[in-house]
């Protein structure tokens, strides 16, 4: 019988191997699934792991999708490390996009390029406002942050719907639920001509550095992590859990809002009801698969955007539903959690009959003695 046995020390090797093992498991299930559906698994795997890398254009698209995932997942990592279960990043992303769009629509042909900065700041503020509601209700009324942040996703969705169907609807938009197309001056500058990847990628990478410094080189970051790992020790040391709560939620709301602003003034260029595409939920997986570590998050965000692009290709070329992306994302997190068991445990083979006899009768050595 297989038996789990606690390791005396957490295995460092396993903590790095576990995400890779989880990926291998997910790919294995994927191959099985494609074969069952009668699709060539090799071709399918190429779509997920080769096509997104094979040309500058493909790499640019990969970066466009990875940027919001990195930003949102960084904030979620701060939250999860401090044991704050913010799972409403999708809502904070939406409100960030809404605030940013509010500023972007003020632009006139004479507006200067500075407006991009104002747009992104508005996005950050929007995300923070939405997360602050969660922080306030948790702090003042002890309301469960998981449920509150999640309910606010639905509310944010309705807010977006109200604006694009109502007051912000483009009068020249043939009655489609969408805002005007933002003027060119509001566009986040692109890095290369002809490719969609923009300055947002650099902003995201800068945030990776900032979060790393905050988590591992500042006292506030240390306090936040202790509060999550050992709440009683943190209280004994006089660290304020309230401050950590606010800090984590405002930072993660701000980062999700920034991602929303970058999307609105970047690839989207207008608001439609289809702004939310699940980045806020996928980022939960990105954060966990990246070990809640800023550098790990970059890798897992790239992986996750490969899933997105692969899913789109599987739809157009293999005729599979696009939601296959969601299946793989969920599977990846599931297998990661299962594989993480091996960090603190090892598997031992223990023959059932022997172990039972050992428990009831003296062993042969004792008999011999």
């Amino acid at each position: 019988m297989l038996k789990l046995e606690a390791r005396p020390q957490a295995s460092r090797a396993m903590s790095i191997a576990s995400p890779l093992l989880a990926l291998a498991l997910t790919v294995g299930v994927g191959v099985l699934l494609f074969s069952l559906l009668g699709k060539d698994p090799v071709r399918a795997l190429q779509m997920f792991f080769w096509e997104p890398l094979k040309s500058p254009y493909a790499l640019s698209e990969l970066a466009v999708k990875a940027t919001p995932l990195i930003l949102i997942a960084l904030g979620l990592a701060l939250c999860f490390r401090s044991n704050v279960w913010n799972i409403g990043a999708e809502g904070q992303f939406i409100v960030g996009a809404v605030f940013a769009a509010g500023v972007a629509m003020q632009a006139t042909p004479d507006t200067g390029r500075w407006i991009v900065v104002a747009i992104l700041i508005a996005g950050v503020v929007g995300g923070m406002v939405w997360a602050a509601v969660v922080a306030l209700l948790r702090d003042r009324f002890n309301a469960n942050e998981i449920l509150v942040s999640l309910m606010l996703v639905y509310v944010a969705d309705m807010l977006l719907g109200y604006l694009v169907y109502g007051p912000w609807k483009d009068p020249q938009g043939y009655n489609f639920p969408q805002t005007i197309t933002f003027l060119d001056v509001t566009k986040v500058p692109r890095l290369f001509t002809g490719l969609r990847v923009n300055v947002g990628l650099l902003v995201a990478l800068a945030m990776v550095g900032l979060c790393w410094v905050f988590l591992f080189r500042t006292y506030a970051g240390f306090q936040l992590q202790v509060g999550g790992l050992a709440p009683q020790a943190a209280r004994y040391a006089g660290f304020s859990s309230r401050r950590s709560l606010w800090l984590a939620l405002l930072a993660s709301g701000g980062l999700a809002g920034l991602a929303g602003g970058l999307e609105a003034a970047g690839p989207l260029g207008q608001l439609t009801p289809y702004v939310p595409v699940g980045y806020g939920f996928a980022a939960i997986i990105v954060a966990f698969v990246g070990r809640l570590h800023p550098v790990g998050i970059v890798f897992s965000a790239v992986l996750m955007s490969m899933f997105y692009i692969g899913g789109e290709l599987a739809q157009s070329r293999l005729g599979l539903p696009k939601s296959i992306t969601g299946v793989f994302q969920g599977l990846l997190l599931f297998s990661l959690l299962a594989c993480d068991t091996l960090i603190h445990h090892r598997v031992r083979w223990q023959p059932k009959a022997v172990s039972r006899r050992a428990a009831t009768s003296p062993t042969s050595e004792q008999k011999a003695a």
Partner: protein
Amino acid sequence: MDSAAIALLIAATLNAGTVLAIAALGLLINERAGIVNLGAEGLMLVAAVAGFATAVHSGSDLLAFAAGAAAGAVLAAAFGVLVIWLNTNQYASGLALSLFGAGLSAFVGVRYTQEKLGPRAHYEIPGLADLPFIGPALFKHHPMVYVALALTVALSWFLYRSRAGLVLRAVGESPESAHALGYPVRRLRLLAVVAGGALCGLAGAYLSVIYTPLWVEGLVAGKGWIALALTTFATWRPARVLLGAYLFGGVTMLQFHLQGQGVQIPSQLLTALPYLATVVVLVLISRNPTWIRINMPASLGKPFHPGS
């Protein structure tokens, strides 16, 4: 509004509350055993597809309910093994289940978005259904509406009047003591998780087969999360779960009613009402920490490793 309209509103409220009640009762069993299952939304989505597909192919509602419950039980069992034997984080695993369920249901469900179920049977309780006002309000429902009521009574009796219920509560309050008394804590917890999953699945199938009856991506639309909130709202008491479910059913129906009346409120605000109501209710309930803790299972969300 005349009395006939009020009767219809009451009937619609009971119908809308039934989905929430069945799912929340399932989650209550879970949580009484000490396990929080944040995967309820995903469970319900997969069960809704399973139920709907079964109904389309077999034409039998009963088979559809069985398929939904089975799908819920299987997914919940996977979650249970993960959190109970492998000691993974309950919150993270539940989230994984929710995300996986959302993806899987959308993937499998694509081919059922165009499908339609045949005309739904009409149910009446003979005699009682003919009563004025009360008849149309209370006695012309799908049997599942009464099943939710019966489940509430049965669960109350089970938890507070039966020996097995006492053991289940002990497992959620103090797994160490239950273990010391010789009860197989982990197996009992798994049993509770599977039973809870089956009920969530039943609720999902009822939603797609009877309540709507159709399948679209994301059909459950947060009802799993609202059911989770309901267990807190009810401070883990079955009767209050039922009450809360009908209250939320009422809010949902009020929203449709106001939209139908052409009230000058943006429809999106009305659609957001159930979610806003959930937040408000959570705040009102959680405000008083002692009150919420009276019935809260003491080991809720905490892992248990026997013999370590």
